[in-house]
């Protein structure tokens, strides 16, 4: 049964790790803008003028 104690403590530590990364994410301003990234992700990378040559 000591294993339960161990598991609980580990899960708490991991949960604390997540809390810490949440703090980091908020403090580094990742939630300042929660809309533009959704648009940005759909852009194609670096369109060069020659891309239609194969058509």
């Amino acid at each position, binding site marked *: *049964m000591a294993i*339960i*104690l161990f598991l*609980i403590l580990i899960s*708490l530590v991991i*949960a604390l790790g*997540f*809390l810490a990364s*949440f*703090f980091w994410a*908020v*403090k580094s301003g990742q*939630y*300042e*803008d929660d*809309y*533009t990234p959704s*648009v*940005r992700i*759909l*852009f*194609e990378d670096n*369109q*060069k*003028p020659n891309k*239609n040559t194969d*058509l």
Partner: protein
Amino acid sequence: MLIEQQTAQSTPSQQVCKHCKEPLEQEPILFADHAFCCNGCQMVYEILHGNELEAYYEMDQQAGRHQRHRAAVDYAFLAEPNIVDQLVDFQEANRLKLTFLLPDIHCSSCIWLLEHLDRLQAGIISTRVHFLKKTVSVYIDTSLTSVRQVAELLDQIGYPPKLSLAGKNETKTNPANRRMALQVGVAGFVFGNIMLLSFPDYLGLQESGFQELFGALNLLLIFPAVVFSAQDYWRSAFTALKHRHLNIDVPIVLGIITLFGRSAYEIISRTGAGYLDSLAGLILFLLIGKWFQQKTYYYLSFERDYKSYFPLAVTQLLSDGSQQQKALDELEEGNRILIRNQQIIPADAILVKGEALIDYSFVSGESESVLKQSGDKLFAGGRQMGGSIEVDIIRKVSQSYLTQLWNDAAFKKKEKGQASQLADRFGTWFTRIILSIAALTMTFWLFVDPSVAANATTAVLIIACPCAIALSIPFTFGNVLRILSRNGLFLKNTHAIEAIQTMDTMVFDKTGTLTSAQQAKVRFIGEPLSTEQVVLIKSMVHQSSHPVSRQISEMLGKQTIILPDNFQEFPGKGIQGTIQGQTIQIGSADFIYRTRLPKREEAIKQPKGTYVKIGQMTIGYFKVQQSLRKGLSTLLLRFNKQFRLFLLSGDRNREQAIFEPFFEKGHLQFNQSPGDKLSFIRQLQDAGHQVLMFGDGLNDAGALKQADVGLVITEDINNFTPSCDGILEAKHFEQLPKFLDFTRLSRRLIYWSYGLALIYNIIGLSYAVQGLLSPLIAAILMPLSSVTIIAFGVISSSVLAWSMGLKKDDSDHFAV
């Protein structure tokens, strides 16, 4: 696919401009196999084409906006280091970061183009767009480019930055939201873990050793929630108690203390598992409610003062004849400055040279522009509608007649707090009752069975914690805020909702509020125009971007357009050109008659209007009349039944008769200065009334601030609006009675939800007073009551909105 593209390109008889997609009315301008409606659009395309950025047009169908009516802006003032310093976010060595406000950002193409700005100018390292705020943060290498060049580039591609005296304040971020996010995060973390550790106790499992361990862990976990997450409640409760009154946060804090105390006792003395799961849940739900109650409008600001209306800098004329850009803050008495067409007079000044035609409508409410002569005083905030003028400053910007208004105590008084009056009154009553019940319970049990006394009393205080009650207003009114904003009325916070519910008097401004320059009617006075004359006039006014020209153009509708020869525009006076051999002049009486009536005074005696002269004959004139907003009479009649109405206008009383039917005798006042309006509101309040002020311009700023609710109406939410509690989009003006009704009716929903919450409290109390409360029951009742109240609040307000015909979705606006 390549073949299809080529075919499309070889037929330049497309119907729309390649850039702005507007129909081509006149001879299109051709460039690179595409047609454009004007030089502006063509120039933007040229820039994009030359830098292989044509993907701009593919991402969003309506990427470009028409460039025909762009004002020419001079960014020379951005070359001054001290002006740039006011705008810069970050600066060191060769690097500089700056955020521009670009009201023209409206689609994904905009984001794409602006984030590829580095392709258009060497020295731009990176750019990042915040779409909802409509800003772009630019990171540049100052050895290769400058702030001024970036601004000019943005202007050239169709995204002119909006720069005002408010400087960085226009684009700054709000740090308070971060703290709340962290608080919610911690509360959620604590709640989740404590629930997990409390499960064995719910299921009645009794493994020795683990019980103590879980209890200890719970006790450890609850600390951050109580100390950090619940901070604001402690502060609010203690402030209230210090001032010897109660609010809704006092019983909440009482509940927190009791829950914690009793649980700590039980865990340490090993007599029980405690109620820490309920406590964690309580804190989490309260914070979520607070979060929901705050509605963030990214692009709107309810805090603007005059600084957002004024430009950053003006052109100063030095004694040696040279020009220099001077920051508005640094303007001194005696400085001579140059003001061009459409520019704003920054401070009280005396006209020295040039012809001034000043539009004061936004500043004083006067609907007609005033002609001023050399030696006349000009007031800050007016807009010059003629050619360039030179003026001598007589007062600093902050001491000018208009801006002095901001020194009034009304602007100094602390922000009307976020606290809900309704909730606080209820909280006062509620606390007293709970404390009485607790006291009664204690005395009862001390007599009957002392061992139960502590248990029962603390149980009463625990179960009575007004979690559900405290959630009612945030969720119900928070939903009301959201519904209203989808329909075109943007209220600042729930406090504005409560103020609307308790008001009894409405004060209206006239110019720009009840009347609209945009909906102005244009009439032609003279012999009826022949088709040929209409075509001639339309061809002429189509070339000019002056507001009156545009109004005439719109009134004449779609006509053939012939490009005039020798077209000339004389700012503030008129336009002139030749079509098919005939010389056409359109403009003020002064402009038309100057060859026949050399004396200026005689010209002024002619009725005011925009005259049309074709060849040698003056055929008549156009008269622009301010028109009342659509639906005004219905609206005023409706409000007349519910509230006392007043009209305060800065204009002269020429059109008094139009408004008289709607207001009681003596309730109409004209020639009101901004200070007069403020005092009037104050007088009403001193007489015990709750006042709603409805205005639009800077001249209403004082009254809006002083009133219990200040509402501003605007044609375009991109425009400047003075500090207020709510912004109404002009196109939804007719629905204002419906909006106010909805807001007022939502108060009843709160009463219902309070009733519902009390039922839960009574059920819980029945267990508590008997000493039968267990952690399990508490853990069920509290979330259950909270969820019920939340659901009731949100659903009932949505149903109410739907039954009143209010819109549910965001079809009109783009995620404000």
